[in-house]
């Protein structure tokens, strides 16, 4: 079997699962649906782990699958390189654990079948967006993931959820139309939609205004999807209203795939990053880092607090990537992976508290450590990770970003990153104090720990948090450096893809 034949499976498996479940959901038992969903996400996780070794074995460091045998630039191709592999592993790891968690968590809701259908459609959109090598295909997958996430935010159909989802849907659609217009301009200029071919044409054909203009359109569109600060208004509502398992997916991976991955793929590999774009990215990153963490300090709703921290942590990622140095990009991508692990863990914790106690208000809960030891312990690990306390993974990636800032001479940005980290620590101390420490309230004497499936997911993610720092060891480092190399190569991406096609 040729190794590139595994690439379409990342789209096929979730798409098939989504429609299969919606077909048979009415006729079969609940346990079968649960088992089937866990099985297909586990298969996806297996294939994404397999793609690491497949990429290492190949000579060109890029694998290309041509759909229907049509060679690019005419046909659509799927591209698997270091960056895609990093994103695939992140997305599918979180998706698998969230799926296991949802098995128990969805007891509260009525329609399990529809939930899993939408969940798999969203997963299909994200996986497809990561592996595609065609710009319009990227837009289609982006819309698949966005539309299913609008529906998932409104899944509870309570007043607040509908309101949040409506806001999210309107702003998301406007963002998509900006992206669409950007793609239309690029097509009009280059007469091609293949990303590698487009990079080649842009570097050969002289242009004055096109790349800056389209960059601004993409910065607006993808910035809105990634919730960078001037465009962040929808995120706290949407992420705090969704069911907890979906919040974990949205905060953990959706804003990164739809926003950051798509943005950096286009900026670095098609346009070839310029100093002006780098400065814009760094400024937006630092702004979101500080503003969001200050807004988060005053929150009393647990999920809303976490949602604001998502904006702030995404700021770190964008700051690191915007630096454009090898160290900065490495730190940014590492923080992207780490953030998706600990932020989904935190949201799963909030879901476990909501499941057991029935509240999200920090003032209401107290002393839950005695009743929910697993949730308390995993939450402690995740809080320390996000705040950047040494043995956990968040520390290493933040350290890399701060070092990269100092190395390039941006002392101000480095100080901003440190300040945001301290404020993050403060706000998570608040969570620890009010939720888990202190006296147990009398009405919570009957509270039980969350079910086993939920505990399993949380413990797994906590283990990744503890051992995540090991990824910087020389044995595991190629996983991150090969992703960073793709971005550092810039327009060299085009040459790599064409070479892999001809092989």
């Amino acid at each position, binding site marked *: 079997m040729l190794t590139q034949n595994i690439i379409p499976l990342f789209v096929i498996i979730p798409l098939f699962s989504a429609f299969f479940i919606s077909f048979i959901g009415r006729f079969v038992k609940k346990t079968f649906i649960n088992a089937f969903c866990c099985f297909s996400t586990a298969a996806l996780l297996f294939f994404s782990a397999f793609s690491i070794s497949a990429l290492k074995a190949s000579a060109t460091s890029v694998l290309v699958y041509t759909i229907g045998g049509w060679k690019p630039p005419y046909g659509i191709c799927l591209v698997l390189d270091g960056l895609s592999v990093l994103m695939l592993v992140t997305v599918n790891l979180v998706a698998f654990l969230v799926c296991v968690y949802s098995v128990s968590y969805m007891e509260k809701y009525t329609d399990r079948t529809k939930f899993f259908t939408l969940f798999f459609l969203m997963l299909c959109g994200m996986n497809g967006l990561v592996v595609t090598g065609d710009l319009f295909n990227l837009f289609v997958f982006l819309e698949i993931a966005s*539309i299913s996430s609008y*529906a998932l935010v409104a899944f509870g159909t309570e007043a607040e959820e509908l*309101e949040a989802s*409506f806001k999210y849907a*309107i702003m998301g*659609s406007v963002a998509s139309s900006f992206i669409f217009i950007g793609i239309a301009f690029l097509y009009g200029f280059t007469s091609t939609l293949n990303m590698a071919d487009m990079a080649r044409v842009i570097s050969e054909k002289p242009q004055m205004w096109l790349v800056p203009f389209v960059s601004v359109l993409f910065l607006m569109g993808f910035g809105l999807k990634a919730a960078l600060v001037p465009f962040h208004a929808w995120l706290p509502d949407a992420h705090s209203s969704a069911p907890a398992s979906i919040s974990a997916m949205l905060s953990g991976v959706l804003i990164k795939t739809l926003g950051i991955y798509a943005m950096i793929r286009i900026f670095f590999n098609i346009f070839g990053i310029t100093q002006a774009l780098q400065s814009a990215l760094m400024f937006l990153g630092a702004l979101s880092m500080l503003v969001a963490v200050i807004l988060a300090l005053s*929150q009393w709703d647990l999920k809303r607090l976490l949602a604001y921290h998502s904006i702030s942590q995404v700021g770190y990622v964008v700051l690191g990537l915007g630096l454009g140095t090898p160290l900065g990009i490495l730190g940014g991508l590492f923080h992207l992976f780490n953030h998706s692990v600990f932020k989904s863990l935190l949201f799963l914790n909030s879901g476990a508290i909501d499941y057991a106690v029935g509240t999200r208000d920090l003032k209401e809960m107290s002393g839950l450590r005695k009743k929910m030891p697993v949730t308390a312990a995993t939450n402690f690990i995740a809080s320390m990770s996000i705040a950047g306390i040494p043995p956990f993974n968040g520390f290493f990636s933040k350290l890399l970003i701060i070092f990269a800032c100092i190395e390039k001479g941006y002392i101000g940005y480095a100080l901003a990153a440190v300040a945001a980290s301290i404020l993050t620590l403060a706000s998570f101390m608040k969570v620890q104090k009010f939720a888990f420490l202190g006296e147990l309230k009398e009405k919570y004497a009957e509270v039980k720990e969350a079910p086993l499936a939920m505990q399993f997911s949380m413990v797994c993610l906590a283990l990744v948090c503890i051992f995540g720092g090991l990824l910087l060891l020389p044995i595991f480092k190629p996983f991150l450096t090969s992703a960073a190399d793709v971005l550092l190569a810039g327009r060299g991406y085009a040459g790599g893809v064409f070479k892999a096609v001809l092989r």
Partner: protein
Amino acid sequence: MTLYLLCLILFCIGLYGVLRKRNIVKIIIGLGIIEYAMNLFFVLLGYRYHGRAPIYAQNQQILDMVDPLPQALVLTSIVIGLGVTALVISMAIRIYEKYGTFDITKIKRLKG
């Protein structure tokens, strides 16, 4: 050139509707106008005056044909727009059931 400018004006009308109108239904209509404007723009990119359909026939030389690719892409984009509109309208109906109003300024339970 005029046609492109008209597209831009249509886009701005849609954006005005989304940003300034208070009625949810009007916001959705504004979103629809934005989608039409961008689809129209994309189709125009591939159009050429006095061009012909890009259909291959025997013994015929095709000299100036319309670019068919944007048309195919716009078809996809129209379907996506339909999906978004349907979803948002069904949400608007549910919002009316819960809040009893279409006024966006009165729908504000989420704060902070």
